[in-house]
């Protein structure tokens, strides 16, 4: 066993520190050391997206990131999506549109969809399918997931200030 490394980062908006072995992935540390088990391991090879987290705002598979790489960076997991008791519009939309069955892929989809809507507040159906193609769901056939993301996007656009400064959009 090798010597542990000290890592300090911003995790779900809070300053956090942990010790980890260099071989430990971010996913292993989140789940086994920090008790943040909302990120799921479906494959550990970056193919299923169940462990999707935001690293400095970009979607990454936590199974493909070494925990030591997150030093001085910002990580958002599914546990950081809601604002206390207030669900993120994507979470509400997933519930209202029955966009989950077993729920194991849901955290990854929500995180990936948040990254998409942060970048592109008005995606087309095709864009949603394209952007979420890195997340596998075996239960739903994606229909209700895509509808939920489109509905959440509409809700968020309605709630947003009328003059947007974003430059992405379609």
């Amino acid at each position, binding site marked *: *066993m090798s010597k542990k490394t000290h890592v300090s980062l911003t995790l779900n908006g809070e300053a956090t520190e942990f010790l980890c*072995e260099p*071989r430990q992935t971010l996913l292993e540390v989140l*789940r*086994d050391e920090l008790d*943040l*088990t*909302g*990120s*799921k*391991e*479906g*494959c*550990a*090879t970056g*193919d*299923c997206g*169940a462990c999707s987290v935001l690293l400095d705002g970009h979607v990454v598979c936590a199974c493909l990131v070494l925990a030591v790489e997150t030093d001085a960076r910002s990580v958002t*997991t*599914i*546990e950081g*999506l*809601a604002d206390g008791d207030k*669900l993120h519009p994507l*979470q509400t939309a*997933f*519930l*209202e549109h*029955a966009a*989950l*069955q*077993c*729920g*194991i*892929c*849901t*955290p990854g989809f*929500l995180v990936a969809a948040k990254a998409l809507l942060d970048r592109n507040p008005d995606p*087309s*159906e*095709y864009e*949603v*399918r*394209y952007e*979420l*193609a890195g*997340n*596998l*769901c*075996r*239960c*739903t*056939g*994606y*229909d*209700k*997931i*895509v*509808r939920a993301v*489109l509905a959440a996007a509409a809700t968020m656009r309605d709630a947003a200030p009328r003059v947007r400064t974003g430059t992405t959009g379609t």
Partner: protein
Amino acid sequence: MEGKDEKISTASTGTGGAERTFKIVGTRPIRHDGIDKVTGRARYGADVSLPGMLHGKVLRSPHAHARILGIDVSRAAALPGVKAIVTGADMPPVKSKTEQSGEGTTNPRHLSDNVLAKEKVLYTGHAVAAVAAASPHVAEEALALIEVRYEVLPPVLDVRAAMRPDAPILHAGLRTQGLEPASDAQTNTASVVRFERGDLAAAFAKADVVVEREFDTAMVHQGYIEPHNAVAQVNADGQATVWVSTQGPFEVRHFCAEILAMPLSQIRVVPAEIGGGFGGKTTIYLEPLAIMLARKAGRPVKLVMSRAEVLRATGPTSGSHIRLKMGATNDGKIVAADATLAYEAGAFPGSPVWAGAMCLLAPYDIETLRIEGFDVVVNRPKTAAYRAPGASNAAFAAESVVDELAAKLGIDPIELRRRNGAREGTPTPAGPRHKRIGLLEVLDAAQAAPHAAAPLGVPGSATAAHDGSGANGAASVKRRGRGFAVGFWFNAGLQSSATIAINPDGTASLVTGSPDIGGTRTSCAMIAAEELGISVDHVRPSVADTDSVGHTDVTGGSRVTMATGLAVYEAAQDVKRQLCRRAATLWKIAPEQVSFADGHTVAAGGEHPPLSLAALGAKLSRTGGPVVGRATVNAQRATGAAFAATMVDVEVDLETGKVDILRCTTIQDAGRAIHPAYVEGQMQGGTAQGIGWALNEEYVYDPEGNLLNAGFLDYRMPVALDLPMIDTVIVEVPNPGHPYGVRGVGEVSIVPPPGAVANAIAAATGVRMTELPISPPRLLAALHAAGVHATAAAR
């Protein structure tokens, strides 16, 4: 964005709740476990962690077929941090026998040998030893130190090779069951099933049109995103507790008790949330290993499979070889069918070929037929149930041949199915007559669906789900076609238990033993709320461990909302009877003068104001104590068979052989949709799996029996970009055996898609694909062989 979701109700002359007006059934409340699942709080098996817990790993065979000559664990045991090691020698001997379990049969000897190999390993990935250590990394290092000496034997990898007389033999003692006369020869064919009626030669002689084809389908995996897991703790007195993501906690308890020679009362199974199963989590793999390791180490042990282990050693469902010949007269009457099905069971007997044989022609009324099925062992993982086990393979064959018959007869494919469609009283291929079924209503709904009247559109043009570009946007290299197919599945009954406790404020707590994979907590709570006349939010449903609820069979066979729902319905009747007695006590009148309506106890003659559940709840302690309603059911007689149909538009790229799904509609008889959104979800999910089965998914082995695609990158399941919206039409032909008419909806939607996709490709290209999956290389080769070239299309 296309979005046609419809619901068509058909009044029935029978029962099935057709006459009833529902308040809650048919609405779409948000699921009770929803917040936990969108916030990451829901605890799945791999999320369970106990104080002092060790981590286990499994050593697996690198050979597809080999004799184990010896296992030396001494070096592994000496590694610091290693706390326990188990091998097959640690397992008690188990008698070989066949017993019913869930939707199939199980032999505990085979189960034990699959959990840990004893004399032989029978597939790459077969477990040979397990280690518990301080961390998963140490456990993995220890695996590399275990020395297993093998005598490598030649493997036999597919069903046709395994049936040859000179094939390598997996089990020296295996004899074919069901053979007449019986044979004492060594074989890989574990059993034969046969249905026969009428004079086949005479019937085919009457046919004006005959189609005969041979089909091959690849072994495919259920593909749940959550790998198998188990955490076990064993106390010094032998009491074991297992936390596991499973479809059947009572099956886990039963199987573990049987192969570890423990009394049932010594094992408690706590069902964690489950990340998909589709039948693959109705058996055991890691649970007994976790118990044995925890017992040996004196500490809790957690085992979680990697994705490669899931693909190499769990699931899958059978690859198959099917020969089917059907004959019809010019007026569109199918008069004869002759079928032979051979299914890969994997390393141990027990493929779903019997189900395939029974489902193959179940949608049709055919007077004369012969169906023969072979269950064949091969050096691949032991197959497990997969959503309507065995039926998709069979329907691919049947629906392809029926489609060809329709083309030869010049009859619309839906119309041909209607003319020959099974209805109430039609004998099934196995003999028993269909009860009230909804096939004809499904066909009507398919013909009436917006999809049926929609044009196919210009090849190469964009749709909502496709940008139309593809490899290149040239319409000249693309062809479009529409396909249709139907499918049948029995739906299971089995046993369920439920209790409903009335709280002092008139709310209720509902306990069942059915793990909730797709929202069944809520569908069961809706049934309780409907009966008790309270809001669904006032019913708190939970899934209990095996010590806290009566025996409940698997979440499988499309049975939870039907059978556990029936137990909930009956438990609610029990609650209502007790409440009426309590009200009678309060009112000092005879119990028979009290009835229950709209959430209130009502006195006959109106001499007392009705008491709400809340008002009565507050008075329970004064009238005899708490009210708990309970019910247990064997729902076998309540089952209602299901039919589904898939209509699909495809675009074939003649240059690459890639098939895009442009539009898809699934039509299904639900009997009664308790929560329509969850019914749609089952229909869409099964359809997507069926499309993956049709186009891309397959186990690829090298000649030595190494699985070459043991990961999600190469075992190619559909992603969001591969599919359009999947439109649904829920047909409701109530099941007379159930108080609400529920049939069960989980499985049948996976049955028609492979046939529908193949039929659409045939319509688009004129090429009939008889091998699954219809992956780009396979289709391209077939197109070229048939002279269908991209250049030829650019007229």
